[in-house]
């Protein structure tokens, strides 16, 4: 059953991806990206990652959609037709993709319970966290305690993003004309 859902979701994701590639109205693209996130959240649920699914839905379909829409409102929403031949990107993508596929050949099969991933530290989390931490949601236990430091880093990343956005967007915007002929451009116009 879950395999069927899995396949359906993956197919839908692929279709959405291709649509994302082809559509040039950015509003539509943003909406599709939101849908892509929702679909992936569904996939995460199928693969038992409920926390991730929740977060992906909130972030991918929620926040980032809002941010994209806000940015589009500020910056316009039409995309030009790509001017140059996509040969180089195609080659890069092709090589990267093939390399990855090549890498999966020796990868343990999907869903195998004996895969090494599940038997090194994961065992410890599942078996010992009830004694060591004492909360049922192992993801939270790992997130906030075993790897709490990563989460602190994550919090800092979010904070860093806020600092960055404040530095970029706080304060008055310069008019386009003023920005266009600013004397700082280039070196010839030194003061």
């Amino acid at each position: 059953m879950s395999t069927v859902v899995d396949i359906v979701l993956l197919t839908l994701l692929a279709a959405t991806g291709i649509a994302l590639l082809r559509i040039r109205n950015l509003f539509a693209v943003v909406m599709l990206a939101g849908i892509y996130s929702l679909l992936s959240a569904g996939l995460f649920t199928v693969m038992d990652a409920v926390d991730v699914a929740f977060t992906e839905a909130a972030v991918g379909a929620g926040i980032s959609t809002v941010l994209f829409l806000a940015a589009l409102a500020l910056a316009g929403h039409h995309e030009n037709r790509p001017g140059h031949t996509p040969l180089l990107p195609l080659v890069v993508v092709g090589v990267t993709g093939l390399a990855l596929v090549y890498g999966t050949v020796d990868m343990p099969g999907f869903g195998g319970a004996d895969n090494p991933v599940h038997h090194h530290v994961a065992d410890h989390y599942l078996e010992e966290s009830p004694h060591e931490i004492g909360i049922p949601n192992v993801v939270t236990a790992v997130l906030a305690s075993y790897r709490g430091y990563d989460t602190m880093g994550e919090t800092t990343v979010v904070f860093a993003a806020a600092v960055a956005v404040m530095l970029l967007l706080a304060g008055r915007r310069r008019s386009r004309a003023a920005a266009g002929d600013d004397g700082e451009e280039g070196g010839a116009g030194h003061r």
Partner: protein
Amino acid sequence: MGEGAGRVTAHLPILQVVVPLLAAPICAVLRHGRAAAWLAVLASWSVLGIALALLGQVMAGGVISYHIGDWVPPIGIEYRVDIVNAWVLVIVASIGAVVAPYAIASVEHEIAARRIPLFYAAYLLSLSGLLGIAITGDVFNVFVFLEISSLSAYALISLGRPRRALTAAYRYLIMGSVGATFIVIGIGLLYVMTGSLNMADLAELLPGVWDSRTVKVAYGFLGVGICLKLALFPLHLWLPNAYAFAPSPVTAFMASTATKVAVYMLLRFFLSIFGAAFSFEVMALDRILLPLALVAVFSMSLVAIFQVDVKRLLAYSSVAQIGYMILGLSFASVTGLTATLLHLFNHALMKGALFMALGCVVYRIGSVHIDAMAGLGKRMPWTMAAFVVGGLSLVGVPLTVGFISKWYLILGALEKGGLWIAVAVLVLVTSVMALVYVWRVVESAYLREFSGDEGTREAPLSLLAPTWVLVAANVYFGIDAVRTAGVARQAAEVLMAGIGS
């Protein structure tokens, strides 16, 4: 007291990162730029003190392992300091400690007052991100701190006054994120094969799965991802504009630290985690890196010669110098790696000094165009003297650190014998090219007439003093390189452990 001190020293590894990391949010909410500035100075100086203390501890007592959250690795995250990253920490911390006070005057001049507290917040975040990458013993933690340093770096670069700073930051963001994503893919592939994220643990587990294609692909993705971050030719496209258009202190800081930490990542992943034996014997890393490094050194030196914006000129020179570091790695020998590790430090010193001198120029005349700098030798004698010494170091004149790096690099090439002499010749030829591009600036500054504003004076002491600290370091460590070379050699031996050489 004694017991208290003992406790503090035991926590040095985590304090190394947490001090600037927690100072950053405090900076962000301060209202006065000066207050934030001094907090940043204080934090960055204590960071340097901690880094030096750590280096001392490691040299005296060997590897330090700090278990965050009291969880024994690989269950929890570990901070692991050996001589290699203690060395890198000292490099980053030194530059951080010098640039912070330098930034005070420079930033007030180049950035709107309201943004200054945030600037220091971003600066400290970037610093702690880089330190975090260098000190951690957990591969996923590397990614997290990489993003802390990168995000703040994008913001810092975008603060440059020319609007091209924005596009430079954007390009860096795109390429940096691709790099980070590649690194994540690589980490994921390693994880799927071993089930571990701890570096030391991975180093033990990986030999068991060496021959799997997955590990090799992971190797490739990590390599490409890190090389994007360290701007190895031909993945360097983001770097020249980013350095050229960022505010002066940011350029000085980034040029001396960010790429160094990326080189460290490369060494750590390829030589410690995968192991030198795997890298050189299975993956033929040396044969892949050698041509890239040679092309980088040569072509980028050539491009630098034709630049008219001096910041950009030095940015291209940086890409070339990164080539030297990678070249040392591609020798696959202790001497070559010693050269790489020495050059990490030495290049930080020289580029730091040079970019800071340029910052002084920007402060006074607002431009670093080569024509705008004509005749500055008389108007700003100390600034230009700093530039000259830094430039000589870049060329590799004896009594400067540049010479020491070059010495070990050539020695490494000649040690290999045979056709490698051609590599040595190329290193020297590119030094001569460095002479040419440094020379163009010096000639403009000293042998042409000043044409700018009559009131142009020497830069203020608050800019000159930190600049000259680095200049003095260039000379001091050029005259007494026994200690630095000793540490670098020890570190190189650690990294090359397990391979006969």
